[in-house]
């Protein structure tokens, strides 16, 4: 779950992901984009219900695990980049040196050891969280948010808390 209202755009999540997974240059499993002056989106793989990467991969390199996590097997990847083109969220990242795609694993080895994914652990404002869909979600939760690509095709597993309105007084320019 991503709380847009809490994200300060600090990019700790990106850096923590790279530190944990040692992804090479230019391969960023998690990315932060600035949607408007005050809204950031921190996005990675959404571990979709109907993953398009899984559907298009000619080598059947993708699996959707019982726990919902979508995994790519690098040994099967032939570097065709179909998944890179198909994913609306830019989750599969292409490593031009290895000629293979890779993506967020939701840090499943950390989860097995009762640790949070590295991005969640790093987030200083708890804007990123793992939530159990079988438990109660906050009432304000949304399936999508402004700036997030269309969810109809793949049904992402990410949930959002949208930004709340705030009072702002800009400089009185007339003087």
């Amino acid at each position, binding site marked *: 779950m991503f709380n847009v209202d809490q994200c300060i755009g*600090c990019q*700790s999540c990106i850096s923590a992901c790279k530190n944990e997974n040692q992804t090479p240059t230019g391969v960023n499993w998690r990315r932060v984009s600035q949607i408007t002056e005050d809204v950031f989106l921190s996005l990675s793989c959404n571990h979709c219900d109907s993953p398009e990467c899984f559907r298009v991969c000619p080598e059947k390199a993708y699996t959707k695990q019982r726990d919902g996590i979508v995994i790519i097997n690098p040994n099967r990847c032939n570097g065709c980049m179909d998944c890179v083109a198909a994913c609306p969220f830019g989750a599969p990242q292409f490593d031009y040196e290895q000629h293979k795609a890779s993506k967020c694993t939701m840090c499943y080895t950390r989860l097995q050891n009762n640790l949070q994914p590295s991005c969640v652990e790093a987030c200083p404002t708890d804007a990123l969280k793992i939530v159990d869909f079988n438990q109660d979600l906050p009432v304000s939760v949304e399936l999508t948010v402004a700036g997030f690509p269309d969810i109809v095709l793949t049904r992402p597993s990410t949930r959002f808390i949208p930004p709340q309105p705030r*009072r702002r007084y800009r400089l009185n320019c007339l003087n």
Partner: protein
Amino acid sequence: MNTTYEVFRNVCPRNCYNSCAMLSYVRDGKLYKVAGDPQHGFTRGKLCSKGYAYLKYVYSPNRLRFPLRQYPRGSGKWEKISWNEALEQIAEKILELNKRYGSNLSLTYNNGSGNIGLLHQYASAAFFNSLGQHTKPVGNFCLAAGQDAFTYDFGQTLNPDPEQMGYAKLILLWGANPACTAIQQMKYINAARKAGAKLVVIDPLFTSTAAKADLYIQIRPGTDGLLALGLAKKLIENEDYDREFVENHIYGFEAFSRYLNNSDFSPSRLSTVTGITEEAFYELSQLLKEYKPCSSWIGYGFQRHSNSGQSIRAINALMALTGNIGKSGAGAYYLHLGQEAFPLKLANHNSSVQNRLVNINDFASSILSLQDPPVKFIWISGRNPLSQDQGLTAWRELLNQLELIVTVDLFMTKTAEHSDLVLPAASHFEEYDLNISYWHYWLALNEKALPAYYEAKSDLEIFRLLTRKLNKLSAGFSDFPAELSAEDWLASEITTQIKVSYGINSWQDLKNGPKKLQMEIPWSSCKFRTASGKFEIYSKLARKNNLPALPKYHPPQSSKHPFQVLSPQKNEFIHSQTKWLPRIIHDQASLVLINTNDAQTHNLRDDESVILYNDNGSLSKKVQITDSVPPGVLVVFQGGQEPINSLINESFCDMGKLKNHYNGNAFYDLFVSLKKGGDSAEAAWFFV
């Protein structure tokens, strides 16, 4: 192959509020990853984007590995030399200068905040003091004005525990941007908000923190003092102040009320000067009246103006009037001087030496003015003055006068490029240190986690070697205790008082985790360290030092140039420390941020090149149009190919000399004009 990691405790030594404690995972002498140290009660196991990227720092291909000599200076013709050759050249020069002038006054150094661990920050002070009389820089670039303001009001600078900010009901951030510069503090701010507190950000820039504030008030740079005094006047008029606190613990309330009554602090004047609407002013005064306790936090950028000492005193007065002093969740936050309780053996080595003092904030000009003897040798460490100092024109002249320039750094900075010798510095993973935050109350040990990176050495180690070399060539020339190791220096810092206040028996205890200073809430006893024993709105000490006794509003600097330039920090880098950074697509210091209206007036488009100029020079930047910057203000980030500081010259704050010998640096009183054109090819591209 070894599959288990050794885990060490380290501390990020960047000049930053957070001073995050980290765990480093090492196998076969190589760093594999870093993590936040969950035992650190303030940072609680989290790092920032810079901290998590430390592998890229340690193993950056740009990192310096060997001592280098450049001849001729500035030619870019570098030659790898041995440590022995480097130290011999330095020692011979020092001895030759000593012989030529009959003293060491031709020697100086310039040390910055590149590594704020105790054993790094003060190593050069100790070494140069060991030589006896020399030319010593004093002063503080960062926070001198504010420190004096706090001293006049409270008698001493004491920061409330930032973890207590979580109990505030109102948080006022004056030019502080923790979402960028103190992300660990956001936890406590959010905790307070969750419990019903209001977060108010008062800032000329719409920062990432402003974006999360319940109330954001944009203000013209340098006019906060007027706002604070206006609020004070309104609260006094409506009798919405803390009568008990005022009567018992404030000195000079009547004089202050008279000053407010006799001057124009009307909402209309406030609106004209600060740019704040009367509605915003009213809303803020209501919050101050209704929401208690209130924590105020004054950012360091705030006091980079010529009138900032007065502005800070005005905010402190506002906190005192409303009784927001000495209580949980209340207080004026600025700076924690945790280091002062330590003996600081390095800083105080031979401190009785009568040195020739120069102002670090006017360094190059001050040095150039010295004769008999002139300064001929400089040692630069932990700093990149050719990017970060003001008065760069004078610096260029100074470089010509110097016969030997030695720079110690991890990277080939702008300053290193203009040096004769560059010595490779150790990263904090490669040497012991002790870190005391200037914000939170935690003390943490930095362990030696990695073997030396090629031939890199810590500042302390370099001075140990140089001392031996000097004393070999001229017995007894330096009394720097070269026999003492880093561990010995650590042990000497842990006095009985430190053991008690941090609950430890030795520095080795910190191997088990950081420890927190046990201290009551500052000023909870309401016994202030001033002459009157009260909070002094009226300060006789200030008057004695030729300052107004009361906090007075002084208008900010103005200029014939239409734009004021602010140069705040980014969350991706600190100052000019960017040479190792991954993921920054292009050098953000090559940008100039400009308001939409101003861009229209000047017919500018995004990515267009412009020239910023004033009497000190000109430089080229690329336009980025944004409404996060108000009209009349430009933002340029620090460092880069054409550092913005080259346009700043002799700009000082109103305070600083009480506690730091000289007044602070008014980096933000920088005014420029702007015209289209310029070289757009300067953007330097960095990749991961």
